[in-house]
C-alpha cells in the first residue's frame, strides 16, 4: 500500500490517497475517510448484497480480532484472507486488536500478554499469537499489537508500562512481518500508546519511527481503556494530542485514529492532519436506534437536531424520510414512522435501515470534508459541523433536565396515590426517578 498527500489545506488538514493494494491494484481510497466497522468479518448488520446498495466503490473494512478470532480455522482452510472469506473480496481489510464499539474491563495486561475480549470471554495472547492470527487473516493493512488501553488520566507508571510493552510488541511484530510470506501483501502500522504522558508517548513514537522503513503508517491509541468513563474526554484535551503528536509524525505516513469519536472530535483530528477513522461512531448510533442527520449546507443553519432518536414517540406518525434530500436507500424508500415501528417491535430490519443511512451519511461527512479541504474552506466546514454537534449536546442536556423534572412530578403523584390506597401503610422507598 502507498500513501500520498495530494493537497494540504490552510491548517494541517490534508487530502491523501491510499493506493497500491496488491490484491486490488486499481483501488483508490481518498482520505480523510472512515473505515466500515466489522464484526465476524461482516459490516455489522449488512450482508454483501445490501452493502452494494450503500457503496459501489471498495471501502476500508475495520476488522478487530476481538470480534473475529472465531474465523481462524475457517480462514486457515480457505487461505485467502478475511475480506474474501467474509464475502467482501473487493474491499480493503484493516486488522487491529480491539474493537472500540463495546465497553471492556480496563487493565488485565500481564507481562507480555494482552487480554483479548471476545464473546466467548477473555483470551490472553502474545505478540506471536497475534501474528499467527494475522498470517491467516491476511489483512491489507495490519495494526501492530499494542497496549493501547490506557487513559489520559493514567499516571506515569501505567503509561511507562504501556510504552515498554508496546515497543517490545512492535519489535516482535516487525520481526515476524519481515519473515512472513503470508504477509507480503500486507502493510504494517505502528501504534502510538502512552498518550496520557507526553514524554512516554514521544518515547513510543521515537521507537516506532526506528522501524519506519517497514511501516506504512501510524495509529493513535492510548486514549481510552475500554470503559465508559474514559470516553468522556474534552475536545480541547484531544485537540492538544492530535496537534502535538501529529506534528512529530512524518507527513508521508498515513495517520489512523482508533476510537468512537463524535463528529466534532473527528473534525478536530482532521484539522491536525489525521487521515483514517475506525467507523465505530455510526455503529454506536445504529445500535442505539439513532440516525445521524447533519446539515452539510454551509449557507443554512437548521435548528433540527443533528442526531435523531427514532425510538421517540414523536416519530410515530412522521411519514417523512430520516433526512430530506438524503440519497441513501433508507431515506429514498422508508419513513421515520416505519423505522420507529421496527425499533419498537425489535425487528432486525431497524438496524439494517439505520446502518444504511448512518454509513452513507457518515461517509458523506468525509466527502464534504475533502471537498472543503480542496477549496480551502475546511475551517468553516469544521465550525459548521462542530456547532451542530454542540447544539445537539446542549439540547440533549436540557431535555434530560426536563425529563428529570417530569419524572419526579409523576413520582410525587404516584406516591400520593399509593399513600391514599394503602391506608396509612406507606411504602418505604418512594424517591428516585423510577
Amino acid at each position, binding site marked *: 500500500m502507498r500513501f500520498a498527500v495530494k493537497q494540504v489545506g490552510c491548517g494541517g488538514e490534508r487530502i491523501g490517497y491510499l493506493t497500491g493494494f496488491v490484491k486490488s491494484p486499481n483501488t483508490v481510497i481518498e482520505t480523510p475517510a472512515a473505515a466500515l466497522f466489522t464484526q*465476524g468479518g461482516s459490516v455489522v*448488520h449488512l450482508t454483501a448484497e445490501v452493502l452494494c446498495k450503500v457503496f459501489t466503490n471498495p471501502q476500508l473494512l475495520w476488522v478487530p480480532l476481538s470480534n473475529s478470532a472465531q474465523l481462524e480455522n*475457517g480462514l486457515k*482452510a480457505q487461505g485467502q484472507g478475511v475480506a474474501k472469506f467474509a464475502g467482501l473480496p473487493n474491499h480493503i481489510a484493516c486488522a487491529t486488536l480491539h474493537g472500540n464499539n463495546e465497553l471492556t474491563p480496563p487493565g488485565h495486561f500481564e507481562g507480555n500478554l494482552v487480554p483479548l475480549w471476545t464473546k466467548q470471554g477473555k483470551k490472553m495472547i502474545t505478540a506471536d499469537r497475534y501474528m499467527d492470527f494475522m498470517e491467516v487473516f491476511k489483512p491489507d493493512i495490519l495494526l501492530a499489537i499494542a497496549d493501547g488501553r490506557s487513559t489520559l488520566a493514567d499516571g506515569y507508571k501505567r503509561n511507562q508500562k504501556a510504552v515498554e510493552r508496546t515497543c517490545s510488541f512492535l519489535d516482535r511484530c516487525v520481526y515476524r512481518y519481515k519473515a512472513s510470506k503470508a504477509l507480503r501483501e500486507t502493510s504494517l502500522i505502528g501504534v502510538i500508546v502512552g498518550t496520557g504522558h507526553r514524554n512516554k508517548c514521544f518515547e513510543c513514537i521515537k521507537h516506532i519511527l526506528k522501524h519506519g522503513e517497514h511501516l506504512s503508517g501510524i495509529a493513535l491509541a492510548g486514549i481510552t481503556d475500554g470503559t465508559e468513563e474514559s470516553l468522556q474526554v474534552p475536545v480541547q484535551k484531544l485537540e492538544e494530542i492530535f496537534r502535538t503528536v501529529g506534528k512529530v509524525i512524518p507527513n508521508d505516513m498515513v495517520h489512523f485514529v482508533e476510537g468512537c469519536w463524535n463528529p466534532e472530535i473527528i473534525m478536530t483530528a482532521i484539522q491536525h492532519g489525521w487521515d483514517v477513522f475506525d467507523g465505530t461512531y455510526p455503529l454506536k448510533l445504529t445500535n442505539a436506534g439513532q440516525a445521524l442527520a447533519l446539515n452539510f449546507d454551509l449557507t443554512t443553519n437548521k435548528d433540527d437536531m443533528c442526531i435523531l432518536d427514532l425510538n421517540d414517540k414523536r416519530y410515530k406518525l412522521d411519514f417523512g424520510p430520516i433526512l430530506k434530500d438524503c440519497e441513501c436507500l433508507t431515506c429514498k424508500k422508508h419513513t421515520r414512522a416505519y423505522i420507529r415501528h421496527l425499533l419498537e417491535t425489535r425487528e*432486525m430490519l431497524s438496524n*439494517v435501515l439505520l446502518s444504511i443511512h448512518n454509513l452513507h451519511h457518515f461517509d458523506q461527512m468525509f466527502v464534504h470534508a475533502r471537498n472543503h479541504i480542496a477549496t480551502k474552506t475546511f475551517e468553516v466546514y469544521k465550525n459548521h459541523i462542530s456547532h451542530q454537534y454542540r447544539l445537539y449536546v446542549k439540547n440533549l442536556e436540557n431535555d434530560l433536565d426536563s425529563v428529570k423534572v417530569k419524572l419526579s412530578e409523576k413520582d410525587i403523584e404516584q406516591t400520593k396515590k399509593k399513600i391514599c390506597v394503602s391506608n396509612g401503610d406507606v411504602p418505604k422507598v418512594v424517591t428516585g426517578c423510577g
Partner: protein
Amino acid sequence: MGSKSLALSFHVQAECKTSRARAGIMKLPHYEVKTPVFMPVGTQGTMKGLLPEQLECLDCEIILGNTYHLGNRPGTDVLEKAGGLHKFMSWNRALLTDSGGFQMVSLLKLAEITEEGVKFKSPYDNSEIMLTPEKSIEIQNCIGADIIMQLDDVVQTTFQDYDRIKEATERTSRWLDRCLKAHKRPSEQSIFPIVQGLLDRELREKSARDHMSKDVNGFAIGGLSGGEAKDEFWPMVSLSTGLLDKNRPRYLMGVGLAIDLVICVALGVDMFDCVYPTRTARFGCALINTGQLNLRQKQYETDLNPIDDDCSCSTCRNYTRAYLHAIVTVETVACHLISVHNIAFQMRLMQTIRDNIERGTFPQFVNKFVNELYSNGDFPPWIINSLSSVGISIVKK
C-alpha cells in the same frame, strides 16, 4: 377455467393429467401471483431483516402480515395515516393478512370464545379486548392486504371433544357471514373463508359446502398442521380440495415443509404459508433438498462449499458454510444470509413445481423428489398413500 372479480381473478393455465396439481395466475390488485405459491411470513410488517427489494429479487410475489400484531403495533391509527401496510413497509407486491384469531388462541391462555367473538387480555397492557368478526375485518380493511381472512373459531387440531369441534365449525360459518357483511373494500380485498372441521370428515365437508355457497374469490383450509399425524392430515386436505370449487384458489394454512408442499400441490392446493423457513434460519438451519444443514455443527467449520451448490441465491454465490458456521447465531448478518437462502429455496421449489406442471412432467418430478429425499427407499406410508390417492405411484429408483 377460472374466476373473475375486481379484487381477484384466477386463471388455471395448466393441469397435471394425473394428479390434482394445477398451475395458474392469480391476479391481485397489487400483483399477479403465479400459483402454486409459497408465501413467506413477515409478521410485523417486515421479513426478518430483509429489505423489500431483496424479497423482490428472491421472486416473492405475495407475503403475509399478522393482523393481531399489526393491530397492536404500529396500530390502525398509524396504518391508516400511512395509507395501508403496503405503503408503510414499502412493499409494492401482494399481501395477505390472517384474521388475528389464531394468534389469540396460540399466544394467549386467557382467550374466551363466545358467539360474539374472542375475548382476551392484551399482553401489552392487560386490558380486556374483544375481537369480533367485524373488528377483525375492520382492522384488515385498514391494513389493506390484497387477500384477507375471515375470523374463525379456532380449536387445537388435536382436540378431541366432538361437540366443541362441531360448535366451532358451525360458528366459523356464521362468523363468515358477519365478516362478509362488515367488509368495506370488496373491490380491493378478497375475504377467504376458512374450511374448518379439524379431523372430522362430515364436519369438514359441511364446512366446505357452506363456504362454497358464498360469494367469495377463494378458500382457505384451516385447522390442520397443528400436531396431528400425517396419516390424519393428508386425507383432510384431500377431502377439502376435492370439494372446493376448481375455479377459485385454495390456500392451505401453516404448511411449508418441502415434502408437504409437493404432496399438497398434488392434492390440489394453490397457496401456502409458513414461518418455518425464516424461523429455522435464526437458529442456523439452512434448507437443502435432502432436509436441512445445521450450520452450528462443528463439521462445517472448514467446509468451503456454499450451502447448496445448485442454489444461485446471493448467499450461496458469496459465502461458504465455513464462514456461516463462524458467525451463525452471533451476528445478525448470519441470520439475514440464511433467511435469504431459505426463502430462495422455497421459491425455487415452487418454480420447479410450476414448471413441471406446465411441462406435463409433474408426476415424474414428484417421483424424483421423493426418491432424493428418502434415498434409502424407505418411503413413509403417508407419502405413498396420499400420492397414490391422486394417481401418482412412487417407484423406488
